[in-house]
């Protein structure tokens, strides 16, 4: 008898997927307990939850819940990662269609005051479906190129969906409509602050890392100082920088002309730069330490100069670890830039703090969601780069 045939009955027994079961339970609970859509008479009052059955036609609400049930069943019982991914994406599309439709249905024509916000149920469902999708992607182990492609396609689909006008009645899109011109400006400022401080940290941190590697005596001291900086809360660091920068701008006119002052972008960039140093330096040191002494000896034996050994051999071999450090810094910076808005540095944080001031939660989300998306996208991109590096070195 063929040994493979023996395995067939075992494969037939349904294998319960643990993560899928947990997420499905969370999804079911959120449908039962949490509001999916919230109706607010205007932007700043608290809202009232609305039941989907009261908002949308019976058939679309029923189709929606049946779709979610199907996704839950697949998440629990189907092992094939591809099917799981498709099911999760189907669920996400259904959630998006329903929230857009509900916003349309709940907004009286021509009314500019009413706000329709996604409720807690919407967010929990979206997170649960997103986790099922990312888990499926992880199981598929796609190559770096495919991951970047998937990211680009997702971004394009989301952009097209938002541009289509289908979601225009949703509270966050209403905030966007009011702030559209500022949004582009703050987005650019956000990226500029995050990337600018990263570039400065790399230019300064790489040589510092090499120094630490070559001179073990200073290594402990430098890393100690950098970790000390890391422990200062960001708002406190902004505050500490305000004093000397403000004094500098007051005393030296050229500093003011360069845009340096106690508040604004300058203290934000410097604070982010200081935070970025530790991951860059520490990973440079770790990466260089990973290069085996035998390799370095061999390179020397071939007659390479010190500089050639450093640039052509050690750096290349250490690159994946250094890039991992850069990835940490970029994602960390994208989050931290949000706080820069408190000292007039601009970026998406402007919307967050303005929204908090006006008790307009939708405005807070207009700042928070793009920040999360930006951090997530840059993590996916740099992860792909690190993977490519690792593979080509092998």
């Amino acid at each position: 008898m063929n040994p493979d045939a023996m395995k067939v009955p075992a494969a037939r027994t349904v294998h319960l997927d643990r993560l899928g079961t947990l997420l499905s339970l969370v999804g079911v609970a959120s449908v039962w307990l949490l509001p999916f859509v919230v109706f607010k008479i205007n932007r700043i009052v608290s809202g009232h939850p609305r039941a989907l059955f009261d908002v949308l036609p019976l058939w679309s609400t029923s189709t929606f819940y049946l779709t979610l049930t199907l996704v839950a069943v697949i998440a629990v019982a189907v092992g094939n990662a591809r099917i799981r991914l498709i099911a999760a994406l189907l669920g996400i599309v259904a959630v998006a269609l329903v929230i857009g439709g509900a916003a349309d249905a709940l907004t009286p024509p021509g009314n500019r005051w009413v706000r329709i916000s996604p409720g807690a149920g919407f967010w929990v469902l979206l997170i649960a479906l997103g986790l099922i999708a990312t888990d499926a992607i992880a199981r598929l182990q796609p190559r770096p190129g495919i991951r970047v492609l998937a990211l680009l396609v997702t971004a394009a689909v989301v952009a097209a969906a938002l541009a289509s006008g289908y979601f225009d009645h949703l509270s966050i899109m209403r905030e966007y409509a009011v702030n559209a011109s500022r949004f582009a400006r703050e987005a650019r400022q956000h990226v500029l602050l995050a990337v600018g401080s990263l570039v400065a940290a790399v230019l300064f941190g790489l040589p510092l890392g090499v120094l630490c590697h070559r001179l073990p005596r200073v290594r402990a001291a430098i890393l100690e100082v950098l970790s000390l900086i890391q422990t200062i809360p960001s708002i406190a660091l902004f505050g500490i920088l305000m004093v000397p920068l403000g004094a500098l701008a007051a005393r030296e006119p050229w500093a003011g002309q360069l845009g340096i002052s106690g508040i604004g972008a300058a203290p934000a960039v410097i604070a982010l730069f200081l935070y970025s140093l530790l991951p860059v330096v520490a990973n440079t040191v770790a990466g260089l330490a990973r290069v085996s002494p035998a390799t370095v000896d061999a390179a020397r034996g071939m007659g390479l100069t010190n500089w050639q050994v450093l640039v052509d051999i050690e750096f290349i071999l250490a690159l994946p670890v250094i890039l991992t450090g850069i990835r940490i810094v970029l994602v960390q910076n994208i989050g931290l830039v949000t706080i820069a808005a408190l000292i007039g540095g601009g970026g998406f944080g402007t919307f967050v703090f303005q929204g908090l001031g006006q008790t307009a939660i939708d405005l807070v989300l207009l700042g928070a969601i793009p920040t999360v998306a930006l951090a997530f996208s840059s993590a996916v991109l740099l992860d792909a780069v690190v993977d490519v590096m690792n593979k080509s070195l092998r």
Partner: protein
Amino acid sequence: MIGHMIRLLLNANGIPTVDRMTLGGTPVVRRALLAGEIDLYVEYTGNAGFFFNVASDPVWTDLHKGYERGAQLDYQANKIVWLTPANANNSWGIAVSGEIARKNRLATMSDFGRWVAGGGKVVLACSSEFVNSSTLRSLEQAYGFTMKSDQLIVLAGGDTSATIKAAAEGTNGTNAAMVYGTDGGIVASDLVLMIDDKHDQPAYAPVPIIREAVLKANPRIAAIVKPLMESFTQDSLQELNGRVQINGEPTEAVAEDYLRSKGFIK
């Protein structure tokens, strides 16, 4: 808001302006106008009673008579010309929730007084100033109703955004709010302003006022501003203020949008 519109409109008509609209409250702006630091600002007609210490004169409760008296006093004393006023009133008033107004057909303070006197269950959110100054008592006497102390929710600070929010959310049964007549929160929170049909309160109509010397140098200003001021109504000012106060739209953008939609600028 109206100041921004006038500035944009004058610019569009080739009259250059300088924006000093961050100056501050009425006393500061008025002193700046008298000192010649600014040329034009938007005043409320009823304020003239306080400028000339004749606030108790009943003339201020009538929008048009108040305007004429104020214009006359300000011109005689300060050579300041009052341009066309808006037909809207920003005085203190009471707004009730849309649901109750529709169910009981309430549109004026007379309706409101009759409804409350007839046992209507009203809970009013207001400031302590509204209760302690004679405002509420004067309204009660004029319209023949009385509010018991458990029908009043006195909010510290007395910000109308707080009273409107309380009425909109029905906090502790609140279904009416002390408001200013052109408050942006009224329409945005589905409240209905009770019209002061017996003219009990002084009328506060927005009116642009200008130094005579400046007007003589640019006589076109009066004719340019007139159709704009005449285009305003109680409802349209509530709506415009609401877009700024409630929806968080930038004042200048709302002003420009209004001028465009009404065809004042291209």
